[in-house]
Structure formats: structure tokens, C-alpha cells
């Protein structure tokens, strides 16, 4: 899309609590992100598989660091370590 696209892209599913957990951390860290919504059916998530190697969401792509990651606990830990107060 435009050149002003945020560096972080979040692949998410509507109403997925694990995705909302990541959103909360992104908001806490004041990070801009672009949401890309996919469908509940795993078989309909090829875009996530191409990006992250797995069909699970949430998944993030961080162009600041070149990191791509799945699993909400891992993502939250990564965001806090990379962008948090102690980083």
C-alpha cells in the first residue's frame, strides 16, 4: 500500500483472544501496526503460512528487525524485549 505503512504487520483473526493479547501489548508499547485479517478455516490461511511457515495466528512481521513470529506468548515476549522500557 502506501509508503506510510507501519513497519509491523499483524495477521489476526476476528475475536481471537490470542490476537487481542498481542494487540494489547502493541498498544502498551505505543507501536503502530497494520492489521491483516484472515478467515477461521486453517485451510484458508495460505498467506500466513507463506509469511511465517505456519497457518496459526496471531503472527507478526516486523520490518524494523526482519523478525517474523507466531504464538502470542512468544510475540508478547519479543515485543517487550525489543520495544519495552528495559530494551
Amino acid at each position: 500500500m502506501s509508503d506510510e505503512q507501519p513497519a509491523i504487520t499483524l495477521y489476526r483473526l476476528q475475536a481471537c483472544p490470542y490476537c487481542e493479547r498481542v494487540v494489547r501489548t502493541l498498544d502498551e508499547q505505543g507501536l503502530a501496526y497494520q492489521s491483516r485479517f484472515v478467515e477461521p478455516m486453517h485451510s484458508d490461511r495460505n498467506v500466513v503460512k507463506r509469511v511465517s511457515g505456519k497457518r496459526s495466528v496471531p503472527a507478526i512481521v516486523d520490518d524494523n528487525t526482519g523478525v517474523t513470529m507466531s504464538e502470542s506468548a512468544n510475540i508478547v515476549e519479543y515485543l517487550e524485549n525489543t520495544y519495552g522500557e528495559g530494551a
Partner: protein
Amino acid sequence: MVDFDVVDLPEHDAPEPGDTAPDFTRPLVNDEFWEDASLSDLTADGPVLLVFHTMAGAFPATYVWNELRDRGVPEDVQTVGVSISSPYEHKSFLEERGVDARLFSDPAAGVAADYDLEHDLDGMAGVTEHRPAVFLLDEVRTVQYRWVADEWPDFPDYEELADALAGL
């Protein structure tokens, strides 16, 4: 055609050739995912054919997208639709019809209001959708060509549209 009068649609004040088409941001759906996008993001990449259409499932949406697909229009110009259908419906529609385009989801028809092309559906209380229309926009959203439905139903003049595309 039929031997009775088709329903006329009212006067409107939609953007005309030379006008700047109103910008908007809505979820833009492709065959894999959707994300918020602005019309101006798309025009920044080149001319855009903006197609207002009925909700997925109604035959005019099927007809117009089959025609655009069969004429290869999405290969010639960035082609995007707008309707009140949800992103889920848009995604299924693109897959089922084999259409290589992207569709904005505008369930509250706010974009229709901005373009003065709201169509309140008789017999579907509370449902307003987009009056069928086509806008060919240049890189700064200036309208190069416009077609707006005068009747219900009504379909674009595809030959005229082809001429407008050739003139880009």
C-alpha cells in the same frame, strides 16, 4: 427488453469528470485477507477503476464482475469494488467468481453517502447500499469517466468504459 417501465432512480450529485473523488478508508479484501486501505493509497500507484455495486448474492454484482472479468478489465487497470457486503462475503465472492480484483467493505454505506449514491432498498428495512456506478480515476483521484445507474437495475456501458480506459 421488458414491455413495462423499469423503476427510475432519483437525481444525484455524484462526482463528475474533472471532480476529485472523495477519499475514504475501508477494509480492502483480496482472495486471502483484508486490511484497511485508502482510495488515495491505490491511486498513488496508478489509475483506479472504482466500481460501486450491489451486495454479494444479488445478480447485478454477479453480472458486472463477470463482465469486467471476461473483458480483462482488472488486468488493464487497478479495479476495486465497493459494496455493503462483509469482508467474509467479499472474499467468497472473489474466489467463486475467479475475479482478480479487490473489494472494499462498506457495511454502513458511508462511502455511498460521500458520493451521493445511497440506495435505500425497498422491502429491506434499514438496508442502504451503493447505487451501481463506475468511476475511472487518475493518480490524483480526478474523475476521468463516470457512469451512474439511472434505473433499477442498470448496467455500465462497457464499450464506453473500454474507450475511457483506452484514453488513459
